């Protein structure tokens, strides 16, 4: 490591990978082809996912917040991830914890809100506060931060994913991709070990459990199946132990103050950590009537307490193996991820279940962020454009509520994403002009037992007799695992307006408002941010077009090259100014004139792939060693230098 680093204004923006964990969060980047974690000013890698607020609007994140937690239990949010994408009356809010929640009112029942000094704070905002600190730590190290890959539990549903993406946006990050945590871990392991085969990733974190079965073949990481429980983790072990501690301390159910609950939870966690390599632990705790009491917890007792939690993971594991059509003996290895896999009972259980000695040689707390950094590097085009590709799946079936409240599955779980499905509906009343669809996610037969994602209202259907209109609704799940819905009326060809009412989470307006509130100079800062975003996007497209000129100029039709060049020039002129909408308009124009050409290039790529040639070989020579972001930086630096 250099003794000191000189600030370089031309430093290229560097892509980062973020593990936004239940207990700890961290950020990593790729340096010289190797992923590494960012250390903060205290030389620590892990930032505790703890956020504290005071009555003067200050925000504390990480260890500082952790230290304040005992004194301010209600105003210190721990394990916020468990509340992401959940409704105000979700069972999660009723578990042992020190928080005060804003009572669910009809209007905002779709989001959990913590009450902090009379203010209501959503999990998205709390997560954004953690992300801001991670971004800052990365900037201290890398000077400029580019796009980010943020990891999510594979078993996160659509609402939880959307909430995570909103948090990234709120923190001012360009979210390149949401990446499933087990897949990220597999990526880190796969690149280190360079061994093809069939693997299981067992990821038991602070609040979530994932099991993923995937095959690694020649750089392709293809997920076969995934399963889990997005409310199961090390926290549940802490709660089980804390209940015992509260009993030994003589604290009655009624006299559980937020302070004593926080204390018991912290002591339980410390006991769990100690029992990893010790047979017994002694805890000195305050007694209810005054004074203190010494409580001894033996490992056998601890294991007895947590066994039901550990065994719950087995159900998901067996199902994932069955869905993948794999017997444990066929696996080539089992990878352990997440801090809770340090618990000896968990390791024994995994060994018995999968009949393999589990691998844990990459730090289970860091492996996810390291994999995310690799993926960010690949997506940003700075990484080696070799043959690495992740093919992930939809974790939970998507369905529609039909007559009688029964779920009709439209996309089954474990379908490779991106994926689409089309369904046709008809009107049931004369002159019906609207249609409502209820989208749910889950495996249960009744829609009310599944998780409600959103209600989609189709509007503007031309009045027709019942049964005449034919509505074609297309569901598409993108590579982030997020659902998008479009609709068309087939007899008239009219594109339908789709109004989405998310059942859980925030709508676009609410996120926009939070964005405004979070910035010091509201509108002004937001405008500056929009301009910066428009610039990055425009530069990227300019670079992509230039690259296409080198590789696929032969596919241009007469006159087309001139039109493209003219629009490139126009875009260049717009970029010299400071008008975000002018830049966006020029990007759209360029997009328009390159559309047909892009189609021809795509077809060429397809036929080459069918011939077995790899297009990346061609692109490699074109892009050279620099990559997109480096190119962008050089351009931006020269543009700024001209002022």
């Amino acid at each position, binding site marked *: 490591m250099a003794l000191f680093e000189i600030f370089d204004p031309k430093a290229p923006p560097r892509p980062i990978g973020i593990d936004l964990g239940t207990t700890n969060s961290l950020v990593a980047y790729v340096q010289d082809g190797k992923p590494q974690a960012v250390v903060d000013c205290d030389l620590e890698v892990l930032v505790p996912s703890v956020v504290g607020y005071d009555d003067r609007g200050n925000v504390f994140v990480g260890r500082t917040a952790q230290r304040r937690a005992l004194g301010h239990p209600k105003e210190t949010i721990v394990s916020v991830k468990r509340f992401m994408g959940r409704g105000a009356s979700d069972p999660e809010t009723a578990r042992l914890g020190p928080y005060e929640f804003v009572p669910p009112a009809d209007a905002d029942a779709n989001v959990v809100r913590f009450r902090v000094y009379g203010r209501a704070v959503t999990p998205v905002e709390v997560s954004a506060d953690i992300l801001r600190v991670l971004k800052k730590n990365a900037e201290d190290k890398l000077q400029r931060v580019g*796009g980010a890959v943020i990891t999510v539990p594979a078993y996160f549903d659509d609402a939880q994913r959307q909430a995570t993406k909103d948090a990234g946006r709120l923190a001012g990050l360009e979210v*390149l*991709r949401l990446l499933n945590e087990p897949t990220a871990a597999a990526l880190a392991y796969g690149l280190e070990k360079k061994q093809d085969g069939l693997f299981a990733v067992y990821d038991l974190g602070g609040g979530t459990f994932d099991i993923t079965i995937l095959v690694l*073949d020649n750089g*392709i990481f*293809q997920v076969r199946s995934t399963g889990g429980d997005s409310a199961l983790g090390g926290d549940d072990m802490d709660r089980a132990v804390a209940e015992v501690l509260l009993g030994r301390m003589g604290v009655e159910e009624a006299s559980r103050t937020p302070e004593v609950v926080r204390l018991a939870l912290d002591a339980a966690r410390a006991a769990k950590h100690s029992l990893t390599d010790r047979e017994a632990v002694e805890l000195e705790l305050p007694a209810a009537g005054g004074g203190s009491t010494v409580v001894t917890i033996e490992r056998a007792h601890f294991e007895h307490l947590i066994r039901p939690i550990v065994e719950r993971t087995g*159900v998901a594991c067996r*199902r994932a193996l*069955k869905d993948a059509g794999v017997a444990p003996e066929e696996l080539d290895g089992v990878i352990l991820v997440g801090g809770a896999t340090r618990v000896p009972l968990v390791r024994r259980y995994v060994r018995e279940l999968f009949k393999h000695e589990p691998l844990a040689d990459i730090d289970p707390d860091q492996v996810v962020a390291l994999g995310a950094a690799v993926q960010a590097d*690949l*997506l*940003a*085009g700075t990484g080696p454009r070799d*043959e690495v*590709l*992740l*093919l992930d799946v939809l974790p939970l079936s998507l369905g529609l509520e039909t007559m009688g409240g029964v779920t009709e599955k439209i996309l089954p779980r474990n*379908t*490779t*994403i*991106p*994926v*689409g499905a089309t369904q046709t509906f008809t009107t049931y009343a004369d002159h019906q002009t609207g249609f409502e669809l209820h989208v749910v996610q889950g*495996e249960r037969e009744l829609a009310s037992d599944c998780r409600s994602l959103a209600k989609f209202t189709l509007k503007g259907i031309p009045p027709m007799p019942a049964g005449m209109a034919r509505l074609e609704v297309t569901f*598409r799940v*993108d*590579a982030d695992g997020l659902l998008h819905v479009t609709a068309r009326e087939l007899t008239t060809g009219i594109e339908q307006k789709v109004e989405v009412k998310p059942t859980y989470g925030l709508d676009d307006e609410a996120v926009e408002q939070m964005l405004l509130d979070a910035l010091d100079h509201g509108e002004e800062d937001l405008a500056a941010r929009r301009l910066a975003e428009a610039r990055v996007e425009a530069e*990227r*497209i300019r*670079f*992509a*077009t230039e690259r296409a000129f080198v590789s696929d100029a032969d596919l241009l039709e007469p006159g087309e090259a001139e039109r493209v060049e003219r629009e490139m020039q126009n875009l260049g002129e717009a970029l010299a100014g400071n008008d975000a909408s002018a830049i966006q308009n020029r*990007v759209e124009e*360029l*997009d328009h004139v*390159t*559309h047909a050409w*892009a*189609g021809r*290039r*795509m077809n060429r*790529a*397809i036929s*080459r*792939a*069918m011939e*077995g040639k*790899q*297009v*990346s070989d061609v692109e490699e020579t074109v892009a050279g060693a620099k990559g*997109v972001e480096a190119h962008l930086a050089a351009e931006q630096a020269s543009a700024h230098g001209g002022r």
Partner: protein
Amino acid sequence: MIDPFDTLGIAPTFDVDLAAVEKRYRDLSRVLHPDRHVASSPAQRRMSLGKAVEVNEAWRLLRDPIRRAEALLKRHGVEIKEGSEPKADPEFLMEMMEHREALSEARAKRDKEAVLRLAQRIRTREKAALERLSSAFAPGSSESEAIESIVPVLGELRYYRRFLDEVSAIEDG
């Protein structure tokens, strides 16, 4: 619905080499997956997403024998959808009903052994039906004759699949 054989550029036969199809699927994914187009123009990103969806769908259809058969029939202008197929043989229906009753009985009694036994019996029949399907599609059999014999087998296979799905649900608890 897309034609999965055309999408993946695979010869339209029932007895496909799934390993080769999967390799083709992966080769196409390498160039079409949205991860490969993050830095491209919006038009190209949309296009890559659309194509990646098609390629994923094609692979999903082709590795499932029922859907593969449906796709082949569709190429011959025969469109069969679940529910619209001709009525099954009453004797077969009766037999399936008995099996389903036995399954619900085993479920109610939590008799795991019986569930497994029933599942095994259906799997054996499924395998035989798949073999019949394969020979019906084999080159040499006359087209109209083949299609006539294929449709009822597909209906049969769907019954088996629903039965096995139910078994799976019982196993999941």
